[in-house]
């Protein structure tokens, strides 16, 4: 199981509490995690990455295992600790603004 930590507003929108656990059938990448996340929670489509370009929204970051993975390729394999479920894949909102 892949663990995904969402920021509070997206947890509210998806009506979940705590981390989300996902089965990701394909190779575990940012893209495959977000594909699985959006398939299970369609209301999150467009809120983490743009609908058409699939680009990460500018004020969001992807962290895992103490690393900022925001600028790695969306199809790059994620660390084994994320794949094994030992560490969550974190979607983090920038602390900018009110």
């Amino acid at each position, binding site marked *: 199981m892949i663990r995904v930590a969402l*920021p509070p*507003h*997206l947890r509210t*929108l998806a009506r979940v509490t705590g981390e989300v656990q996902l089965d990701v059938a394909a190779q575990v990448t940012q893209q495959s995690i977000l594909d699985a996340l959006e398939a299970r929670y369609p*209301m999150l*489509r*467009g*809120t*983490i990455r*743009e*609908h*058409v370009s699939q680009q990460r*929204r500018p*004020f*969001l970051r992807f962290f895992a295992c103490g690393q900022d993975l925001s600028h790695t390729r969306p199809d790059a394999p994620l660390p084994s600790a994320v794949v094994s479920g030992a560490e969550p894949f974190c979607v983090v*909102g*920038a602390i900018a*603004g009110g």
Partner: protein
Amino acid sequence: MSGVRVLVGTRKGAFILTADGKRQRWDVSGPHFGGWEIYHLKGSPRDPSRLYASQSSAWFGQVIQRSNDAGKTWEPVGNKFVYDGVPGTHQWYDGTPHPWEFKRVWHLEPSLSDPDTVFAGVEDAALFRSSDGGQTWQELSGLRCHGSGPRWQPGAGGMCLHTVLLDPQDPARIVIAISAAGAFRTDDAGKTWRPINRGLKSEHIPDATAEVGHCVHHVAMHPSRPNVLFMQKHWDVMRSDDGGASWREVSGNLPSDFGFVIDVHAHEPETIYVVPIKSDSEHYPPDAKLRVYRSRTGGNEWEALTTGLPQRDCYVNVLRDAMAVDSLDAGGVYFGTTGGQVYASIDAGDSWAPIVRDLPAVLSVEVQTLP
């Protein structure tokens, strides 16, 4: 007994205020979608329990919410707003070409006849329509592509399509307004559009009487006379008696003809309301006195309405979608401020009282008169 439901969009959530027909005691529900900007929410005229809300955030983008039970529960619906074809460019603030980019929904206008049909005015300026209750959205691209689009330019608040007026007598006619492009009209349900800005004069553009480029802040219409339009422009209050084909200024004796809101009394088509603001760089009332101005002559002759409103040290603004009217007997009028107050008058503006205060900055106010 009849009642009133006031839908308030704020910088940090939506609030729903309800009262019976006396409008003395108000129940406040909210915040709905706390922490999100709610630019606008509005109910279907056909089914008052059907509400739509525009929920947005700089972090998470646009969400559209729909309620089938008057706001008790909500469900997110479609948020995919994709411009038709290759979007092309409009002008940026410095006059250079800038690609069209969807940012947010400013205004939701439910159809007069079908609860599942709703229009969305968006930034960067375009008009979208959903006919499946907000699940999917299609652009009415004849507006953006009619020819003048590449010359449109954003106002300070962005290039927003903020006004959508549906003609109750002619379903094919829609009037919209864009800051800072101007007003436009379709007579064929959105296929073709034309600018309707003749008579507007704007000193902040190179050609003050240009076909497009006017910073229209809001347009209002009485449903019994859809050919008569009232406009609060950046500066100037304007009136058209021919569906926007021509405009004349009716600012008259206003202390300032800058402002954002304008609305029409529910039963008196010649009674209109504005809230003068000092200037485009001083977004607060003249003399620090919050005054609604009423004209019972369709403009030019205005009277200040001050009873119950703060008459000293007041520096709030009233944004373009933050005034609405009810259709009870005397004609209720409501407006919200950037200071978080929502004021109501149940006597057509003669006196006012806050029905809620200390909300986040108010972005929009809509009113439903309930049977």
